[in-house]
């Protein structure tokens, strides 16, 4: 999966280490990568010489919001509603025979992810394996997403 790397993000930053955000530029890049900050928090990026780079950085990071419990970022605009993430989720497969056979979960089923209005939604993050410390690390949904609409940080 061609997920964004910290170095890729760093390339769009001013690299001056001015400290106005309280971090070095590399540190700021790591916060951007985990979606704990936004490009708008870097004052230097607002300068006229960085207008293009800021736009490119915004496009690179997308509008996805990180779910704190699972670290899953869903970029809804990239999702085509194919349901592959729903189909490969081990929680779904363990709890719902119909989902394992390819059908989408119904209302009221044990479900972490659900295709709502043709976009994937994290409907119950508490059930995700990533929210359970003792569960094996899982990234099946993001690994199989064909449009890179999901990212785990």
């Amino acid at each position, binding site marked *: 999966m061609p997920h964004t790397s910290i170095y890729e993000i760093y390339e769009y930053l001013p690299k001056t280490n001015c400290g106005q955000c309280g971090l070095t530029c590399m540190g700021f890049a790591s916060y951007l990568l985990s979606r704990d900050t936004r490009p708008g928090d870097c004052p230097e990026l607002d300068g006229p010489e960085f207008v293009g780079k800021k736009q490119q950085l915004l496009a690179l990071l997308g509008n996805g919001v990180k779910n704190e419990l699972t670290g899953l970022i869903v970029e809804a605009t990239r999702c085509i509603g194919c349901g592959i993430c729903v189909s490969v989720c081990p929680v779904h497969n363990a709890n719902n025979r119909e989902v394992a056979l390819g059908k*989408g979960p119904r209302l009221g089923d044990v479900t972490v992810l659900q295709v709502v209005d043709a976009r994937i939604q994290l409907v119950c993050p508490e059930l995700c394996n990533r929210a359970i410390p003792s569960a094996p690390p899982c990234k099946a949904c993001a690994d199989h997403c064909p449009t890179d609409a999901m990212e785990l940080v």
Partner: protein
Amino acid sequence: MEQGSVPARGERLMATFTDYEYAHHSMVCSGCSCLCDDVSYYVKDGRVVRTLNLCEVGMKQLRSCTAEDRLLPMSPRSFKECVHESLGLLSAHRPVLILGPDSVDEAAIMASLQMAQALEAMWLPWAFTGMRRFFDQVTQFGWATALLDEVRDQADLVCFWGADPLVTHHRHLSRYSFFARGRYTERGSSDRNLAAVARHTTVIEPLCQQFFVVPSHEDLDLIKVLNNPLHSSGPDHRDVPLLVKALQKASYIAVFVDPENMSDEALCALFEWSASVNNKGHTRFVILPLWAAGANIAGFTQISMECVGTGWGYDFSGGPMIHPSNSTWENLSDKVGSVLMVESGSEGANRTQLPEPLIGKPLVVINPFKEAAVNAADVVIPAALSGIENDGIFYRADGLPMKTRKIRGIIDGGYPSVDEILKGILMEWSSWPR
């Protein structure tokens, strides 16, 4: 994590779905020929306010109900006038070509066939040239095919040849062909090998174990080398030995093809290969067409095979079009006097105009949307969206008939269905002076 913080089954999901008047579950989506039967619609104030398990293709069709480019419904009086005008035009310019009844329900396809018989017209779908080539091979070699559920249960090697489900049939991989778990493929994608052959890099590439970008003239070479690796020389691709090995190990091979993206020779070689593998008896090799065409293309095929003996339409004006030289739009344009274009799916909005050789012919359009063909048409009859605004039967890509239901509670504008329109024209034709 505290035990108490885990919500009860579906509690959070329920919380987001209370604001509706009607809920419809297990509905069949007629957006593409996957015909997903697990879709839920939630309706409020005459509009669908939430959907579950609907992909982007289905969503596009649903949104097209209220799209700005929707044609306005007609009054009964102007409908009668339009029917009269249509018949006047079509009967004056014969033979008529009835084009594209592959996105409408079964009743409308049957009505279009009856109309073709009555008017002694040509009756063809949009994907007619590819379908003719496909069914030529079926006639020659026979056709080993299967239900998609059988593919899900048994296929351990799935190959998409010229077809990309992530472009045309978004839920195909998760519902049937790759990720879904089946009786003998209990680990889903872990029990399968996925390969794809395409003209260019496509979205499916990252999911494939083997992916080939092959120009059209190398299709045949690739099939030959896969069929007979010791005695053939094919494209020098690193994935060829891997796919050969996977083919040798496989016990059930399912190949999904879009014949419009394959050469005649390659299609012939594929059918020949399938027949030879099936004759040996150790491995099952099935071929399933995955048309980038109307949602009910399989319905058209079934009805066409049952009623007229071809899978790709018929020419009632002068016998069957058996000779390939008669079977291109260019050749047809010399013969066609006028065109009756029948559309009812959202994909119809993409077919903005007639095939180029037919442009300029007198045109009657039955369509829900405003589009280039409508602008160029002599008569336009607005129709309901099949599968959303009227009940009907659609055929899944593998030929399984499924009942689509109108979404009750939505404001549908009172459009007549394509079936009703065609029957109206037929009724008028019975009393038409000849």
